[in-house]
């Protein structure tokens, strides 16, 4: 059986700048993968290619659950299976918290209003913000907004969740509450690909850590190896810069 997410020779350029220089990656169902690396290393671009928010070179191939991620009809299918959480939350400001969670199931899956509402309330309870369901996002703290964004993505019952630096825009005291939700989620067997600067989270939760630099995968392996005993000099440099500040 092929890997659940399979990435072959992924290349992407902005003009003459090569953001991704041929990435090969296989991710199994239920695996939790953390992608770390310096800014500009291409890690966000990598996960944004998986649901094709970024286009990529024709010679590259990405498959999710054996469906090719190409423009056209199948793309909506892939996107419905791939949940995404953004650095800047991107909640819909004109909808209440509950309506944010209900929108995609109603429109994409055709779920009835009542079913979507009860599902939304279940998910909001799971991320610990039931009391805020009728508020608009602007009245929530950053940490609460990001938890709503996670609930919104989960409402589509995705096979894989992408997290693009989910805690980078948060005040420090709110990072923990979002990481707790993600930790619980990892325990439920959802496939997760997490771009993060939270080395503690990666060390505890990840099945595998990928270190990227300059648009390439430099080192990959279990967190105990990549984060504690890195082999590559670039990984060592990055980790000492991150950990000794």
């Amino acid at each position: 059986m092929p890997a659940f997410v399979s990435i072959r020779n992924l290349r992407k350029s902005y003009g003459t700048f090569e953001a991704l220089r041929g990435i090969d990656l296989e991710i199994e169902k239920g695996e939790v993968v953390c992608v770390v690396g310096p800014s500009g290393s291409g890690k966000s671009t990598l996960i944004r290619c998986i649901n094709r928010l970024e286009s990529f070179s024709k010679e590259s191939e990405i498959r999710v659950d054996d469906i090719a991620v190409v423009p056209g009809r199948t793309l909506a299918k892939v996107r419905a299976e791939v949940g995404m959480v953004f650095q800047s939350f991107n909640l819909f400001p004109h909808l209440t918290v509950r309506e944010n969670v209900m929108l995609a199931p109603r429109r994409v899956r055709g779920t009835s209003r009542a079913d979507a509402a009860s599902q939304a309330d279940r998910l909001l309870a799971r991320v610990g913000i039931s009391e805020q369901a009728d508020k608009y996002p602007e009245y929530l703290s950053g940490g609460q907004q990001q938890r709503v964004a996670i609930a919104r993505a989960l409402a589509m019952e995705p096979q894989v969740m992408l997290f693009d630096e989910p805690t980078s825009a948060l005040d420090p005291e709110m990072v923990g509450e979002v990481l707790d939700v993600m930790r619980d989620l990892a325990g439920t067997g959802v496939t997760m690909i997490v771009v993060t600067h939270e080395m503690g989270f990666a060390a505890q939760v990840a099945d595998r850590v990928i270190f990227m630099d300059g648009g390439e995968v430099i080192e990959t392996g279990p967190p105990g190896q990549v984060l504690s005993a890195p082999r590559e000099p670039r990984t060592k440099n990055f980790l000492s810069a991150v950990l000794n500040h």
Partner: protein
Amino acid sequence: MDIFDTFLNAEVFLRTWPLLIQGLWVTVQLGAASIVAGLVLGLIVSMIRLYGPVPLRLLARLYIDIFRSIPLLVLLIIVYYALPFVGLRLSPFASAMTALTLVSGAYTAEIFRAGIEAIPGGQFEASAALGLSHRQTMVDVILPQAVKIVIPPLTNNSINVVKDTALASVVAMPDLLKQATQAQALAANPTPLIGAAVIYIAVLWPLVALVSRMERRFGARSR
């Protein structure tokens, strides 16, 4: 004759009042029809301008630029007096509505475009990531947010359309201004013109005030 007898003659005013009200009714009909048609046209053109295939996009741009450049009076005269030469004869109402709609549609298209472009890219990305189609993204996510942004400029544009209906008097539309000038000629007294001015202000001032209020409110909300 003092200034009151000349410009604020009560007897003339009462005598010509019914004419002015008839004119107001025509002005309101013409204004409302042109505003609604201009909104529909503008929304369609803005969608083509933003998301259509490239040749259509250029065409939409050309339309917007031309009809924002041409003086309304010139367009009105072309529609009413020149189109009959190519076999297209429109009634005064249809001519005036066509000219007003074409110009209003061009401005409206630009207002919608600016409103849509003011929505952060993250909203489009979040919608795409959830699997919403382009159409669903527009209807459920982007346009409801854009409406708040575009309502004040759209109201401004609507005020302009109502004021521009006065130009329709050149194509023999019995609108408010036309009725006022006719009444002025009949009474040999300019009081009806002052009456028309007061009516324009009475109808449009509330709209102007509404725009200011909306701008304050939406400005405060969107921090």
